[in-house]
């Protein structure tokens, strides 16, 4: 898996608006390079049959029930789904912590680049859901999105045996360690899936978002 950092996306993650100026761009490029170099990307995935007959969605081979309306709607055309976990590893975190001591502006750039790197890993990982037949994928969906509870995070990790296979664990309070890790599911359907684009209303920061206050979204739309 290759580490790719989207500089514009990283700039937004660190609270920047518009285009980064000359010096900021150089710093972001340096940060992206350092994140790419220090990362040790790893991933793991498993496939499950989807059973929507009861309440919520059951992953057939396990006893795991995915509650809520959102995931039910997401998987309405799917007989199968892929659950995965990706991480960029521990080393970038040590790097960020070290830079917090010396230059917090650069540390913020590193942190933002690391987040962007994980996103790119997710995109690459999703492609593994496409096998030899022609299939269509739903959007990626993670515990904590809409009404899929965050408390499912340890269950996803347990199903995938992330602790042993890729060194990702969930702390007692639900933080993923290494921090720059993502668990998600993606549905595999036989027809094209509409992008859900739930927009801002699904985000926990909706009520206090400083982007929305100034008339834009964090993903670049003008309200």
């Amino acid at each position, binding site marked *: 898996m290759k580490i790719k950092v989207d500089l514009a996306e990283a700039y937004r993650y660190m609270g920047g608006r518009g285009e980064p100026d000359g010096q900021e761009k150089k710093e972001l490029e340096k940060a992206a390079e350092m994140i790419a170099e220090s990362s040790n990307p790893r991933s793991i995935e498993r496939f499950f049959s989807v059973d929507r007959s009861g309440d919520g969605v059951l992953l057939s081979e396990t006893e795991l029930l995915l509650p809520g309306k959102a995931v039910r709607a997401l998987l309405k055309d799917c007989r199968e789904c892929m659950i995965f976990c990706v991480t960029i*590893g521990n080393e970038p975190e040590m790097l960020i912590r070290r830079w*917090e001591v010396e230059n917090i502006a650069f540390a913020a750039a590193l942190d933002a680049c690391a987040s962007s790197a994980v996103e790119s890993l997710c995109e690459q990982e999703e492609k593994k859901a496409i096998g030899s037949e022609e299939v269509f994928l739903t959007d990626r969906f993670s515990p904590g999105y809409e009404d899929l509870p965050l408390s499912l995070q340890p269950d996803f990790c347990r199903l995938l045996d992330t602790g042993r296979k890729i*060194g990702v664990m969930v702390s007692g*309070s639900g933080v993923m*360690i290494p921090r720059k890790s993502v668990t998600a599911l993606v549905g595999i359907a036989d027809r094209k899936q509409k992008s859900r684009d739930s927009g801002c209303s699904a985000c926990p920061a909706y009520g206090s978002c400083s982007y929305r206050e100034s008339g834009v979204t964090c993903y670049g739309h003008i309200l």
Partner: protein
Amino acid sequence: MGTELQKRGMPAGMLPEIYGMEHPEIVEEIHRAYIDAGSRILYANTFGANGKKLQRSGKSVKEVVTANVCSARKAAGDLCGVALDVGPIGEMMAPIGTMSFEEAYALFREIVTAGKDAGADLVVFETFSDLAEIRTAILAAKENSDLPVFATMTFEERGRTFTGCMAESFAATVSGLGAAAIGVNCSLGPKSLMPIIRKIGSITELPLIVKANAGLPDARDGHYDIDAAAFAREMSECAEIGVRIVGGCCGTDPEYIRELKKALEGKSCAERTVRKQTAVCSATRFAVSGSIRVIGERINPTGKKRIQQAMKDRDFDYVLAQGISEADAGADILDVNVGVPGLDEPELMKECVQQLISATDLPLQIDSGNAKALENGLRYFPGKAIVNSVNGEETRLKTILPLVKKYGAAVVGLTIDENGIPETAEGRFRIAEKIKKACLSYGIPEEDILIDCLTLTVSASADSASVTLKALRMVKERLGLSTILGVSNISFGLPDREEINRTFLTMAMEEGLDFPIMNPNSEFMMDAVASFRMLNGADPGCENYISRFRDREKTHTRTSAAAGDSKAAQAGAAQDKMPDKAGHTIETAVMTGQKSEAAILTKNLLMQKEALDIVNEDLIPALDKVGAEYEKGIIFLPQLLRSAEASESAFEVIKDYIAGKGEQPVTKGKIILATVKGDIHDIGKNIVKTILSNYGYRILDLGRDVPPEKIVETALREDVKLIGLSALMTTTLPSMEETVRQLRKSNHACRIMVGGAVLTSAYARSIGADYYAKDAKRSADIAREVLG
């Protein structure tokens, strides 16, 4: 074991240890199958039987462990050894995660005690990927039982564990802890593990273990790709390498063991030669003697006012900054000394080490005259450290060497005893001999001894240099030990000290000095090391030398050692002149985020103005202007942070200046900042810390994952009027609520502000906080309102 239990009907999702307790006859049957196939050590079904993993099962560690060890015992009879099998706890230790040393230790102690009581013959720690965790486990086992300990870690193909731990570091660290055998298990098939076990075997003399997987599992069906015969074939290489203990991990079954036994029948285990060398390490950094290894000396309060103040204030950011700049300048190891009179040295050493390992991976040299402080340093450093120091005095040797032995550290021996420092090289050599003898009598290997022949000033005695150098040569040639030395004493009382120091350093390196203790931020001194390494053939193609010097302007001015003392001065050291941009003030430097300019301007302004006036009339108004622009959306967070960095470098200049004059530091009041229990996100909090300290507030940063009790206790003890709490996850908001509740209950008069991406002002109100700080700028406004 897990797969075998599943084959015999264990339902998916059930804990194997619980199932085993409920179906002992099945577990016994599995063990017997393995004995039949040729196993002689049985790993009991206790891999995940720790307090954390059993939490929701309703069963105690004691009952689960006892039941499963008994099953193994029953099957084993007199034929086999029964090992208590212990895997990782399932949570990462700090600083990577939130589990503390004490918590992990307690969990390991619990399971080891249960295993010992149940009659296990030995303890096996396997499948660990974090060096700190396996080290804690081994200490818990050694301190609570007499059972032999096996230790194996799990590696990726690249030769490191998931947390980046190198095979060499694992070998060097665990060897000294008293393990009975060491090796690798899981993750990979036999072929891929061989290079890794070879590396481990080249460093440690301990017996080796290889417990490989049956290759790699298929992503779709989980089927492993190497059959029993192929597995056995690949494992035969173990005999040539000299591995004594072999087994199969994931994907293997009794058939694999049978084939393995057949393949190794009649083969003799090769003898291993281990290269004896002095090595110290952290999980991710391995420093071995052979080429000069620089020990950075700057984390030491002796005679250094600024860092002394930082230690008194528990301003670990400053201490860390020194360590990081030493690492950047090429130090291989950091000396850590926290001996400030009047402070609790053991406690401070513990905290300092824990802080350092969160930001730098350099191995540490624990420097203290206080045995408890030394012990704390050793206990909490997750690697192999150096103890600085012992000397020829009996009591010192008797007190300290047992600690060195217990933690498997290297040790510095000073050639001084109760009679003082010998005047002759022979005299110093004799003390070195005595120290070597004492170390060996405690079982400390000779490669872990570093002799310091001590440097006295040449201005007091003309033969100071030659005595030290001769003693050094004698120690190297006749005792075969590594050597360490601080050189700067040589020039005390003379002009151009650096010139003398550097020449003496070079002479010493030629006589065999392995570990110079010096200031790595002195470019002049480090140049000598670079040249020496190259001239000594330790720099192939002269690559490092060329890249170091190629672009250097050959000026005759040198960076003096003193300039390395402050973050800001370092940045501005090379250009102590007025900037040629007309009309540039501190204000513009801060607003445009010019770090070094801000520092220079401040330095120059200090010649005309009082420090406090600069803070109040130049720095703070600049920050206010930046803050206002941020609020109006003219600039955004990246620019705010750059300005904060510039302001901070200006403030560093002021702090240095004030400390140098022995005055009280500028402070407008104390603020506690903490990320609440369970939460490890802290970049936001650290941004707030930067902004607030730039305004002159003294920040007591309690870090992340802070229990409510610690926040309350600090608030009461330090009488802090403003407390800032941060949480970045909905799951940790209850911790925030609990912290507020405890603060109110304590009746301590204070204001509480809360912040973090998931917070809203409504929530802040609902939990009883006084303020909701939506960003760093707002926190500064709140601080002004509360503290002035």
